[in-house]
Every structure is written in C-alpha cells, then in structure tokens.
C-alpha cells in the first residue's frame, strides 16, 4: 500500500490531493487570497492526512508542483506541465492535450496516452489573457466568478478586446462600458480573446487531433470552454475537441501525486538493487 500526496501551489490557489495505489482518496482546494501559500500547503497536507486518519510517516512520497519548489516537507518536485499532463490523462484517458489556464499564465500541452509531454507552449510576458485579468474585470463589472460563464454564453455580439496589455485592456473595457456595450458581450469578448490565444498556443504545439482537456482554475468556466470551441472551428483546428472535467482544478496536484508514486517505485527498486 503506497500513499502519496500531491500539492499544487499556484498563484491563485493551493490544491492538495491524497492517493493510495492509484485511488484518489482526499482533496483540498484553498484560494490564496493574500495568505501565505506555504502555510496553506501545510494546512492542506495536514487536512488530507487527518481525513484518512493517516500520519506523515504513512506517506511514501509528498510531491509538489507549481511554485512549490521550496516546500520543506516535500519529497520531490515536478514541474507543472509534467503534472498537468499526467493529471489530465487521469481525469480523462482520452485527453491528448491539456490546457492549463492559471491566474497568470496559460499553457498548452500536447501529450500522449500515457501522459507524456510531447510539446508545450506557454503564454509570454503580457497577461491580458490571464485568469486574474478576467477576475479583475468581472469585479469591475460586478459579476461573480460563477456567473461569468453563464452570462458570457448569452452574448450575441461579443466585443473583442484587442489590447495586448492587461492594463490597457482594462481601459478598453471601461470604454466599452461607457459605450453601453452589454456586460455579457464584454465577457464573451474577453473569453474569445483568451480562447484565441489558447488556440494559438495549441496550434503551435503541433497537435492536430484528439481531445483537449481544460485544467486549472478556469477550466470550469463554461463560457471560456464555449469560446474555445468556437475558436477551434474558426481556426480550422477541427480535429480537436475541447472539454473540461469537474475536477479539472486538481489536475496538477493529481499529476504530482501519481508521479510521486512512480518515482517512489523507482527509488525503492534502486534501493533494493543496491542492497542486494
């Protein structure tokens, strides 16, 4: 019996999961909201253990991912694209691409059926297509995070945000409001610009067909998913179908826990070989 914990420390939230022999036992997700992520990680770790009545020594491998390179109690660290890829195939074995949209960066990862990263592409410095930007705008427009998706889907005339810079894009949005553009159309416009960036990232990776799974905090935003589907059609990337999963936000943590188990296996194998 091997228990492993995966902790994904993002810029928006800390996600923790507990696995036993490939079986997912516990989960925690906590928005950071200006708290210390390392504290939250520790807290999440303790909580998942407590939930299963486990003690730290029962855990074979604590794997971090995201910004968790310096977590003291971790056994090892995997980089986020590695973990999102693995988490992606766990959540949906059909997935051949994983798109992770976090608070600051977006990534498109092309994977094979085992969760191996074949190619990937990350957004560059400018951040107008990030989760945080969407969140800021939604606050400005007085829309709750959960409402963004449904509202965006009611839009008839989406108004695209052209600016590459999030700061200037904010002004664009303010101008739109003053021009009387409906909230739904603005949100949809932002979704479309985000989607077109993502579609572009996807295309650059080289993948042409299969299922593309959204992971990360924005995966559950149905409006974004819908926009992405539209963009894939617009861009004639017809071989790809975009989808999400209710547990998408945990993909990174899941991947970390699974890779932790894999490394644990390898390491004990090496150890026993050394002992022999």
């Amino acid at each position: 019996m091997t228990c492993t914990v995966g902790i994904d420390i993002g810029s928006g939230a800390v996600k923790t999961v507990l696995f036993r022999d490939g079986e997912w036992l516990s989960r925690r997700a906590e928005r950071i909201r200006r708290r210390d992520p390392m504290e939250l990680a520790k807290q999440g770790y303790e909580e998942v253990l407590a939930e299963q009545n486990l003690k730290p020594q029962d855990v074979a491998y604590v794997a971090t991912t995201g910004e968790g390179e310096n977590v003291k109690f971790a056994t090892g660290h995997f980089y986020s694209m590695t973990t999102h890829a693995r988490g992606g195939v766990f959540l949906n074995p059909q997935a051949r691409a994983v798109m992770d949209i976090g608070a600051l960066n977006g990534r498109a990862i092309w994977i094979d059926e085992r969760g191996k990263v074949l190619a990937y592409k990350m957004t560059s410095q400018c951040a107008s297509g990030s989760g945080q930007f969407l969140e800021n705008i939604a606050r400005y427009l007085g829309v709750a995070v959960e409402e963004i998706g449904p509202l965006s889907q009611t839009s008839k005339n989406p108004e695209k945000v052209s600016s590459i810079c999030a700061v200037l894009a904010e002004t664009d949005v303010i101008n739109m409001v003053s021009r009387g553009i409906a909230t739904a159309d603005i949100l949809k416009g932002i979704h479309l610009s985000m989607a077109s960036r993502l579609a572009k990232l996807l295309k650059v990776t080289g993948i042409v067909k299969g299922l593309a799974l959204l992971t990360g905090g924005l995966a559950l935003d149905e409006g974004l998913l819908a926009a992405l589907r539209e963009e894939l059609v617009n861009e004639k990337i017809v071989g790809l179908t975009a989808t999400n999963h209710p547990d998408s936000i945990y993909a990174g943590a899941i991947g970390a826990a699974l890779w932790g188990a894999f490394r644990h296996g390898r390491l004990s194998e090496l150890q026993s070989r050394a002992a022999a």
Partner: protein
Amino acid sequence: MKTFIGIDLGSTTTKALVIDEKRNVLGRGITNSRSNYDTAATIAKQEALVSARFYLFHNALENSHILNGALDAFLGQLERDFRLEQYLEQLADLEQVCQRNVGSAKFGDAAKGVGLALAKLFSLLKAEAPQLFVPGARRKSDFFRDIAGAQYLALGEKVAKDAGVRYDMLLNVFDRSIIEVENRVYADSIKAHLLAALERTFVALPEARAFSQRIRKPIQSVLDTELEETYVVGTGYGRARLPFSKEHIRSEILCHGLGAHVMYPKTATVLDIGGQDTKAIQVDPHGIVESFQMNDRCAAGCGRYLGYIADEMNMGLHELGPLAMKATKTVRINSTCTVFAGAELRDRLSLGEKREDIMAGLHRAIILRAMSILARSGGIRDQFTFTGGVAKNEAAVKSLTSLVRENYGEVTLNIDPDSIYTGALGAATFAWRAVVEEGKSAEHMGEKVAA
C-alpha cells in the same frame, strides 16, 4: 462672477480647476475616472465649484473679521461636515440600490438572509460614518467608492458570519451596485448639504454659534453668487470623448507644460506620471512646449503599477510611499510590467526580502523608467517640475531626487502638493486666454456638462 474651468480627464482620476478673471485659483475638484466620462467630468467640475465656494466663504468671512483666529478651524469643520452629509446621502442611495440588486441576483433561498445582513451592515455603516470625518481620520482615499468599499469590506465579513450568509454574496451585491451609485450626480443637493453642514458645524463649534447670524450672511451671499462658467477647456487622456467642440479641447501635453509653467515660471522640464502614461515635456520660458516624449504602448512603470501593488498588498495607495520609506536597502526590480508586479512581489517575498525593501525597489523601478523617458525627451534642465498623481508618493519623490542628482547634478525640483491638478490648471489657463486674450466666447457645450 466669471470663471474659467479646466477639466483633465485622466485614465485614473478626473480633475477640474476653476480660476477667476485675475487667474486666482478658486477651487479644485477630483474624482475617480469611470466608465462614464461625462459623469466624471461633471462631478469633478462640481467638486471644483464646491471648493470654489469654500474659497469664497473664506474671503467673505475674512473680510468680515468675524472669526478672526478661528476661521480656518471653522471652515475645516464645515468642510468635514459637508463631506459627511454627502457621504450619508450616497450611503442611503447605495443601500437602496443594494437591496434592489439582491432581488435581481440569483441568490435563490439565500436572498432573504442577504437582505437582512445588508440592512444590518448599512446600519453599522451609518453609525460609523461620523467617525470617518473627525479631524485627522485616516481614509483609504476621498472617493466614495473607496471609502464605502473599505468600510463595507471591513464590517461585512463579520456581519456575514453572524448572519450565516456567504461573504461572497455581499461582495457581489456591492460590486454590482457601486457603479450605479457612483455614476449619479447629486447636483441639486449641494446647497442643501452646505446649509445642513453649517448647522452641524454650529453644533460642533459652540464658540462660533454666538456669531451664527453674522456668519450666515456672508455665506448666504456667496451661495447666491452665480458662478458663471465662462469658458471650459478639456484635456487629458479621455478628452476626445468629452462632449466639447474642438475649440474647447487642448492636448494634455500642452496643458501640462503650461500648467507647470504657471505654477513655477522657471520650469524647463516637466515630468508627469499618471495612471497609464508617463510624459516628459520640455518647455521654453513662456511655457510653450518644445518637445515631449511619452511611454510607448506598454503601460509598464506607470501609476497603475502602484495600484496593482497596493491591491496585491491590500493597502491604500497613499500607504505605499510611507512603507517604502522605511526601507534599509533597495531590492533591484527589473521588470516594471504592471500585470506581473504582483508576481514579482511574491517572488521576492519568497526569497526572504523584506516588504519595505521590495517596495523601495519597486518605486525605484518606476522612476528608472521615467528617467529613460526624460532622457529621451532631451534630459532634465533647471528647473524641473514633477506632476501627476505619483508625485504625491514620497518614496517615488525620494528615488527621483536621488536619480536626478546622480545623473544631472543639482537642479531645483518643484513638487506642488496640488501637482495632480497641473493639467487642469493648464487647461483653465487656456480657457482664460481664449476669452481674455483672444476674445472668444464659449460655444454651446454638451448639455450634460453645461447643466
């Protein structure tokens, strides 16, 4: 009486400034820029006219020698009381809008609870309101959105918990409602508020009450004086959207150049750091712009950068400077990308740097960018005037001072406490010139602004 008004519609704040025929500054008004430019301009102008009334009160009362030594204290109290009156009216408005929005939000079963919590919250807010306006009180800013928002956040968490409703829902109702409220112009109630405030002041300052009749008279006569908006000139980032004809619009570069020149006639170089742009302007001894440079399409290193930082640290803008002043060293920050400012901050914190040292680095980074734009425009010449919202920030000023000295030696650095109004002052001066020097008369303005 004739007045000349300049309105500077900035990306972050909208400023208005009123001068009289002798080019005395009568009043200044500021509000946060918002989605509705007309409203922003109207409110700023209204605020400037209110402040002009206070100026006139001051003159009238001074001439009457009633309050001799106590005049400033009296007017200070009057102004605070006036703000409180305004605040209470807006708060009442906000409550109404919030309650209405609870009805239309999809809160389902929770709606009733949210409504009750709101009622509780607003009764607390109202009770706390006078506290906000006692002498020396610290407020996050002077804009209703910020003051009310800060109070709402602070009190809301507990109210939500006690009432067993989700805090998120309360926040959501606020976000929805504030836009509507802040876009309302309470033009009609100004006189009433002033009179009501006067009553409050007499309560607060019993000594003054003795002369209440003699005080009321000059005040009433000021209130009866019509402030004729003889000519209005608009400028700033949003000027193209002001409902003014081309004749009434000047480029913000010219206005900042002229404004700085009016404040400090020996100005040769002007630096203006606003919310989304940084401008370096060279002016000749007559205040005429010789050359200028602005930041390019990237908004890195402008005032909004500090806004992101303040949000990230959950602090008010005016608290950033003092924090940075506590630094014992300056952490080197290379990127001034506004959006990644928060990430950069977290990065440094996780490396164990102290908050104040990072803050010092962030301020220096902004000023470094400004130094480049200055260099691009032809460098710094004596005298050098620093304007715009960021000039209020002492840490930015400190970095600037030392970098100027390192690179250009000793130059006189002018910073006016009202430097944020430089563009508006330039615009008002253009308005004055148009009438007094060029003999123009105002064209018909857009209705909303003229109203």
